[in-house]
C-alpha cells in the first residue's frame, strides 16, 4: 500500500488526480475501522493531516467556512455560537477520542445515512466545497448524497470545506439510540429556524438510503408559522409537522430498529425539536435540550 502525505492542498489534489484509487484519510475514524476489519484494502492512502487549509475555519462571503478536516471537538468549542445545530450534533458523535479526530469532511466522505452531521448540515442549508485540479465547485448538501454511502465526488476530487450561514434562529438536533453516544443512532433529526427567510430547515438521519430533508414538512410549517407576530404553536400543528417528517422517511428494518419505530420516533423528534426551537424563538433565545 502506498502512503501519500502531501503538505499542501495543491499537492493533495495533484496526488488525487494521479492516483484516483488513493483513499483520503482525515481523522481516520472511519477509514481505520474499515482497514482494521479488512472491509477495504486500498492501493494507497492519501493523508490529509498536514494540509493547513483543511484544518482551518473562518468567514467567507458572510458564511462560516469549515475546513473539511476540522475535528468535531473544535466545532463544539469554537463554532457553537454561530452553528448551534452542528455543534449539538457534534457533541453526540462517538466519544471524546472520536470527536478529537473525526471531521465533518470525513462524515461527508463516508456519506453514511447514520452520520450525525448530515441532519444539521441539511437543516442549515450547508454547501459542500469540492476541489480538484480541474477547479472548485459548490454543491448544496441536499444534492451531495447519491446513495447509501455514496456521494457526488468524482475520483479526482476532494472535499475541501463546508460553508454554512451563521444561525439567524434557533437550531436543534436530536437522536434516539440505545444510548446517547458510542452507538449508531436508530434515527436522528436536525432542525433550523431561518427567520430571515421565513422558513424552517430539516434533516433526517438513519431514516432513508441517504440523509435527506423533509421537504413537505418544511413547506407545511412555512405556511403555519407567523414570523411577524410569533405565537405559541398549536399541538395539532406540531403533530402534523411530525407526521410529515415521518412521511419523508423511507426507513428499513434492521438490527437496531424497525421501520415502524423509526418513523414513529422521527415524528416525535420532529415535533419536540420544533416545539423547543419555536419556544426559543418566542422566548428570545433560551435553548431547550433533548
Amino acid at each position, binding site marked *: 500500500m502506498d502512503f501519500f502525505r502531501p503538505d499542501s492542498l495543491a499537492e493533495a489534489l495533484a496526488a488525487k488526480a494521479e492516483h484516483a484509487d488513493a483513499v483520503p484519510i482525515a481523522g481516520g475514524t472511519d477509514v481505520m475501522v474499515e482497514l482494521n476489519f479488512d472491509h477495504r484494502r486500498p492501493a494507497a492512502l492519501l493523508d490529509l493531516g498536514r494540509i493547513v487549509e483543511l484544518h482551518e475555519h473562518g468567514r467567507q462571503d458572510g458564511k462560516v467556512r469549515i475546513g473539511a478536516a476540522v475535528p468535531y471537538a473544535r466545532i463544539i468549542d469554537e463554532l457553537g455560537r454561530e452553528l448551534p445545530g452542528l455543534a449539538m450534533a457534534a457533541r453526540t458523535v462517538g466519544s471524546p477520542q472520536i470527536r478529537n479526530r473525526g471531521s465533518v469532511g470525513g462524515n461527508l466522505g463516508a456519506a453514511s445515512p447514520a452520520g450525525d452531521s448530515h441532519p444539521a448540515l441539511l437543516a442549515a442549508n450547508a454547501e459542500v466545497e469540492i476541489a480538484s485540479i480541474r477547479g472548485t465547485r459548490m454543491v448544496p448538501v441536499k444534492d451531495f448524497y447519491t446513495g447509501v454511502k455514496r456521494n457526488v465526488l468524482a475520483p479526482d476530487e476532494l472535499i475541501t470545506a463546508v460553508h454554512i450561514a451563521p444561525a439567524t434562529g434557533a437550531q436543534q438536533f436530536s437522536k434516539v439510540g440505545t444510548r446517547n453516544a458510542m452507538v449508531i443512532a436508530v434515527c436522528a433529526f436536525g432542525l433550523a429556524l431561518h427567520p430571515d427567510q421565513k422558513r424552517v430547515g430539516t434533516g433526517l438521519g438513519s431514516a432513508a438510503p441517504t440523509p435527506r430533508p423533509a421537504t413537505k414538512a418544511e413547506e407545511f410549517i412555512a405556511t403555519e408559522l407567523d414570523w411577524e407576530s410569533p405565537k405559541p404553536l398549536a399541538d395539532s400543528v406540531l403533530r402534523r409537522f411530525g407526521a410529515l417528517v415521518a412521511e419523508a422517511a423511507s426507513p428499513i428494518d434492521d438490527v437496531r430498529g424497525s421501520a415502524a*419505530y423509526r418513523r414513529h420516533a422521527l415524528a416525535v423528534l420532529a415535533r419536540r425539536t420544533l416545539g423547543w426551537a419555536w419556544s426559543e424563538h418566542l422566548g428570545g433565545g433560551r435553548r431547550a435540550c433533548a
Partner: protein
Amino acid sequence: MSILGTRVHRVEDPAFLTKGGTYTDDLTDERLAGALHLTLVRSPIAHATITSIDTSAAKQAPGVVAVLTAADCDLEPVLVFDRANKKMVRPYLATDRVRFVGEPVAAVLTEHPYQGEDAAELVDVDYDPLPAVVDVEAALNGEVLLFPEAGTNVATAKGSADPGAGFFADCEVVVTKQILNQRVAPAPLETRAAAAAWDDGRYTVFCSNQNAQGTRDDLAERLGVDVADVHVILPDVGGGFGAKIGADPEYVLVAWLARRLGRPVRWSESRSENMTGLVHGRAQHQTITIGGDRDGTVKAYQLKIVGEAGAYPAFGAALPNLTGMMARGTYDIARKHSSYVSVVTNTTPTGAYRGAGRPEATQAIERAMDLFARAIGMDPADVRRKNFIAPEQFPYEITDEISYDTGEYAKALDLALRSAGYEQLRAEQARRRERGDTKLLGIGLSSYVEITAGGGASENGSVEVHPDGTVTVLTGSSPHGQGHATAWAMLAHEQLGIPMEKITVRHGDTDQIPEGAGTMGSRSLQTGGIAVHKAAGELVELAKQRAADLLEADVADLVVDKDVAAITVAGVPSARKITFAELAAQEQLRVHTEWDAGKATFPFGAHVAVVEVDAETGKAAVQRIWAVDDAGPVLNPLLFDGQRHGGIAQGIAQAMLEEVTYDEDGQPLAASFADYGIPSAAELPSFDLVGMETPTDANPLGYKGIGEAGTIGSCPAVQNAVIDAVAHLGVDHIDMPLTPVRVWTAIQQAAGGAK
C-alpha cells in the same frame, strides 16, 4: 487501632498508574526469546462440513514457519464439561466440521504477528454449509444435529419439566411467563493471551487467567503429561469476570505448538476474536410460574430452563443447575420446582460470567414476584416482605447438603426502601401518570441472595518473615483485578504489625505455589484471605514459642507489640522485645497453612432502581440506584465498594445495553464494540451504596464474598423499574436489554391488546 475495615488505598495502583501492568502480551521473559506468533484461522461459517483445506499458499507467505490443521494435531478432542453428552467433544482445530463462527480451523505460525494476519487469509478452506441451529427450539426438535453421533442436541438435563399434578392446585392466583436472560459477552479489557515454551521436557505457560493451578492441571491432562511437567505463570490479568477459568482450547494449543515446533509460541487475540472466541454468559430461556393467594402468600414456584451451551458444552452447560438450586431466592416458598435442559447450538460456547447461574435465578424470581404482585394488586415491596425467609429460620436448608448461613432479607429491603424514599417515589410516579407526563417514573426492587465460595471453600496461604523484616505472603488465590495484594497485606499486617509496604503478596506461579483454586465465584477473601489470616496467626504462635526461651517467659504471657512488630511480655513495658525479623534471622520463620470453611456463604441484599422512561420514544434512563449489599464485615471499603461499582455497572448494562445476537445463519450480529454496548459512565448514575453487615459463621472474620453481588442485585431491579414505569399502560414484561425500540414496541402491543 485495627486496620481491618479501613479504607486502605490499593498497593497495586501506583504501578498500574505509572508504568502500567505487565500482561501476558507484554512479557519480555527470556524463556520466550525467539517465540513464534500464532494466528488462528477461524471459521466464518456457523455450521459446515470442511471438504478440504489447502495451506500451500499460506506456507509460502513471508515469515511463515508452519501452518497446521487438525490433520497435524494429535491432541485428543476434549469433553470440556465432563458431565455433558460424551460425544460432544471439542477438537483443538476443527476436523471435519465447524460448529460456530469463530471456531479455530488452522494454526499459522510466523516470525511476526502481522505476517500471520496476512498468511491466515491464504489458507483456503472449503466449507460445505449445513443448516445452522441457532434458536433453542430448533435445537430441541433435533432436526439438525450438531453431533450426529450423539443423536441429540441435548448436552445435559435434569428434572422433569412437570412439577406434578396439584403443584399449583391450592393457589388462588397463578401467573406464568416466558422470559429471556439474554446472551452477553464478558468483554474483559484484556483479551486472552498465552505464551508457552517447551524446554527440557517441561512446559512453561504464561497466560491471562483466573486460576493458575487449575489451568496447570487442565493443561497437563489435555497435553497428556504429568502435572509436574507443566509450570503455569500468570502475569497481571486485565479482568476475567469468570470467563478465564481453566485452560481454554487456544491455551492448550499454544503449549502443544511450542513443543511440536521446538520454539516458544505466543498468542494474543484481537477484540473481534475475543467476541466470538471467548465464552459468552447467561443465555437462559426461562419459563417462570408462580402461584399463591391474594393475601400475598406465595405457595408454589416453578422455574423451567432451556440453557444455551453453545457449540461445545463447557461450564455454561452446568450453570442452569446452579440457577435451579438458587431458584427460590430470599423467599420461604412451600413448593419450589426447577428443571433444565442445556442444548448445543451453532453459537459460541457459554461459560461463567459474573454471577454465573445466580443472576439468572434472581432475575427469574424477582420478575416472578413482580408479576405476582401485579396479578393480586399488591405493592411489590409488600409481597416480598410477606414471603421472606425470617432471620430465625437460619440455617435455611435449600438442598440436602446446602443451607443459607445467615440473612436479614426483610431488613435489607427495608433499608434500601428507606434510603430511596420509596413512598415519595411512588407518589411522584403517581403524579406524573396523572399529569400525563411523557417522562414516566419507574421504581424497581430486587431482593437477592447468592452463593459464594460455592465451588469449594478451601485455600492455602503462607506467611514468611525475612531477617530484613520484610514479609512474603503466598496465596493460592490469584487475582485478576480484585486487589488481593492490598487485602492480604492488611490481614498479615493486622496480626504482625509489620508495615504494609514491607509485605509482598505473591500468587499465580505453580512452582512457587503448587496448590490453589484461584479467584472465581466471589471466593477469595473468605478462603484465600482467611488462609492468610490463619497463617499469620499461626506464625505469631510460632514466634511466641521461639521467643519464650529468649524472653524467659511463659508463652501464654507473650503478646505482639504491633508498633514495633515484636514479641514481648504482656503488661511489662520494660520487658525486652524480640522482633519477628530477629527471630527470622535465627531460624526460618514461615508458616504454610490450609483453611477450609467446609461450606459456602450466602451474601444477600436489596436494590432499588429508579428509571425515567420516555413514553413516546421508549427510551429509558437509569436515574438512581440504591444498593444494600451485605457480605458480612468489610475488610476494606475501597475494595468492597469497587467490586460493587463494577458489579452494578455490569448488571445495569445487561438490563439496558448488552446482547449478543445471531442471525438465522448463525452469524454474530454484535461482534465488535461498535455493535455491542459495554457500559460507559454516561449511561450510569452515581450509585448510592448503603451499608449493612451480617457476618457468616463460616469463618472467624465473618466474611462473605462481594465480587458478584452488585451484578446480581442491580440487573433485576433495573428491569423491574423499566417495566414498572410502563405497567399502567398494560405492560407486564419486556425482555432485556431494554432498548428504546423494545420498550416502545411493548407499549404499542399493550395498547393494541387493550383495544
